[in-house]
């Protein structure tokens, strides 16, 4: 029963093809399609469910699903039931994300398109939806171009621009830790825009860039970059990474003892990341885009309780809020426009203020006229180990609330030149 056939046929070419396929495999992904009815309002969510951003995508999905339930319980959109069609965009394959967006638009005939977490994918989807004249909301892709140089009349964004994030925290970092910074930055649109933002702040404060390393997305070992950073002897090491890359880098920085020698900080930090870190790696100054612990802010406690029921007791993260706010925005726009036509929806969105039950934060967030960017509140503070006897997910201490429109560049400096259809 034995055979050498397998080994005999196996040659180097097959091994090399296999290695190539291993790379391609990371791009392949399943898709999820929910059942749908003809007379419903359809919202298409094209977001990562697999790969590096799967955890973030799942949380946006949970928030979106809660919003759909809430909206349907209160009469739907324009008195029609709402259904959510979910596609896995993958975490990094632009072609797949665009293909799924086109499927949602052309075949499923969605009324609203939502996506994406990955900045590059969000921009590609935005360019596609613009060509198709489809109303789109970007829940969690941060690169500035989406509401900046490549803004479109039909594309709105819930999460902050990277410049808003860097502006909200840079003064604190400059004042507290000094003006010589070393950047370790993820090598794609999100990281690049974050670094540009910090570099602008640094230049304005006459600071020095001690060095900068761009690391490929999905980097597992940051030791070489950390060795370089240490040898540059900066005042602060600024980590502009995301997801698992941030976890890997922080864990390794702690093991190297660099947190005891330098200030380690950055712009965006997420609860999903903090939950993946051991207690000793929970440190540094960061920006959260939403935080679940906001004593005295209306409706936050109900929201947290609702999400806990749907996610096995876990609290909502900024991603959950993005998904929730994005879906609710669709309803608010449609009700204001009294229509599902993209152009009418987009017009209705100009200056639209989120009501407290959707805002779930102070300072009345609103969609800014001119670049379609939501102006929310940013939560600046420090990562912390869970307090003894406190909630195990209380991993961030908010020290400062920054209004979005104070952190954002003025519209005329964003590079956005909005062209509306005639």
């Amino acid at each position: 029963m034995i055979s050498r056939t397998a080994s005999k046929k196996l040659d180097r070419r097959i091994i090399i093809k296999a290695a190539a396929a291993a790379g391609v495999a990371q791009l392949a992904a399943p898709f999820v399609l929910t059942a749908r009815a003809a007379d419903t309002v359809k919202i298409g969510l094209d977001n990562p469910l697999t790969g590096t951003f799967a955890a973030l995508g799942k949380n946006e999905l949970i928030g979106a699903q809660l919003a759909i339930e809430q909206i349907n319980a209160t009469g739907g959109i324009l008195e029609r039931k709402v259904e959510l069609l979910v596609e896995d965009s993958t975490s990094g394959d632009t072609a797949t994300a665009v293909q799924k967006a086109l499927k949602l638009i052309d075949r499923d005939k969605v009324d609203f398109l939502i996506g994406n977490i990955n900045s590059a994918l969000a921009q590609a989807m935005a360019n596609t939806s613009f060509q198709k004249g489809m109303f789109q909301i970007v829940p969690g892709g941060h690169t500035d171009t989406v509401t900046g140089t490549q803004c479109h009349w039909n594309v709105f964004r819930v999460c902050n621009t990277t410049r808003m994030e860097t502006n909200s925290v840079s003064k604190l970092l400059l004042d507290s830790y000094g003006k010589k910074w070393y950047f370790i930055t993820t090598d794609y649109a999100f990281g690049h825009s974050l670094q540009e933002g910090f570099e602008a702040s640094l230049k304005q404060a006459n600071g020095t860039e001690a060095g900068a390393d761009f690391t490929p997305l999905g980097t597992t070992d940051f030791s070489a970059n950390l060795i370089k950073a240490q040898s540059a002897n900066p005042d602060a090491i600024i980590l502009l990474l995301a997801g698992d890359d941030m976890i890997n880098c922080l864990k390794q920085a702690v093991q190297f003892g660099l947190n005891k020698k330098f200030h380690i900080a950055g712009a965006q930090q997420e609860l999903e990341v903090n939950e993946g870190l051991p207690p000793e790696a929970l440190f540094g100054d960061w920006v959260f885009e939403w935080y679940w612990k906001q004593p005295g802010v209306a409706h936050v406690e109900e929201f947290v309780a609702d999400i806990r029921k749907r996610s096995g007791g876990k609290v909502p993260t900024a991603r959950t809020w993005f998904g929730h706010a994005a879906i609710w925005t669709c309803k608010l726009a449609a009700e204001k426009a009294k229509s599902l036509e993209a152009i009418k929806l987009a017009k209705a969105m100009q200056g639209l203020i989120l009501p407290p039950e959707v805002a779930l934060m102070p300072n009345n967030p609103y969609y800014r006229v001119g670049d379609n960017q939501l102006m929310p509140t940013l939560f600046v503070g420090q990562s912390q180990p869970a307090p003894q006897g406190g909630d195990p997910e209380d991993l961030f201490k908010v020290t400062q609330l920054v209004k979005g429109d104070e952190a954002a560049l003025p519209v005329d400096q964003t590079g956005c030149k909005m062209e509306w259809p005639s």
Partner: protein
Amino acid sequence: MTQLLLFNVFNGLIIGAFYALMALGLSLILNLSGVINFAHGGFMAIGGYLAYTLFSYLGFWGALIVSPFLVAIIGILIERVLIRRLYGRDPLYSLLLTFGLAFMIEDGTRFIWGAQSLPYQIPSWLAAPLSSEYFFLTGYRVFMMLLVAAAVLGLFVILNYTRLGLRIRAGTLDLETVSVLGVNVRVLRNLNFGLGIYLAGLAGVLAIGMLGLQPTIGDNLIMPSFIAIIVGGLGSLPGTLAGGLLIGVASGVTSVFFPSASEAVMYVMMAAVLIVRPRGLLGEEGRF
């Protein structure tokens, strides 16, 4: 600059040793059974997740010892139920099977443990640098190196001084003759697969001490492992070890000058080896 370069060479050796551990398991399975195990990264992830679960019951050391054995048992069962059926067929069949298996394992771990990264805490005395000057030599990295060295030594002893190892080596050269001599090659392939998967499981447990534990943890490490095999030479375990160390050092040194190419340099090395010496550095001519 020289010091920085030296630091990165040493550091590259540490990382390379880890790649080599993964690649040795892959290579063992490839050499005897001709199976390109795409699911190797998945087995590595299972090793990490089992260690995470066992941690609460057995602590760090217990999880470190038990988890790789459990992964090996899972590997043995999978070989017996699925992979064995495809030995006589075109290698693309087993390649496709393990390809699918990799997705199933990733989704399975996501289903059981969730998509979010999980924290894994190593003993505090391991999680610190050994000296402030050579800060990249942390207790954990040195421990990892020692364990990889022990695993390589163990593998060497098994392959050279045990009956199982003798049969594996003989089977790698000529499985039909080994069978004719009365060796049960089904069992031999099964145990060899388990041994390879044990190394993947061990790599998984070690990885989560310095990386985030999430379902895709193996994805980013499987490619360097393939490259280590190709660079080192197909069919050669010492070659695989050398390949892993080489790409680790190359990646570390590249990080000094051009960090964004630290990953690409591995592929460049692979291309260069394939052009200049297609059988790999220590590969046997005509073996593959």
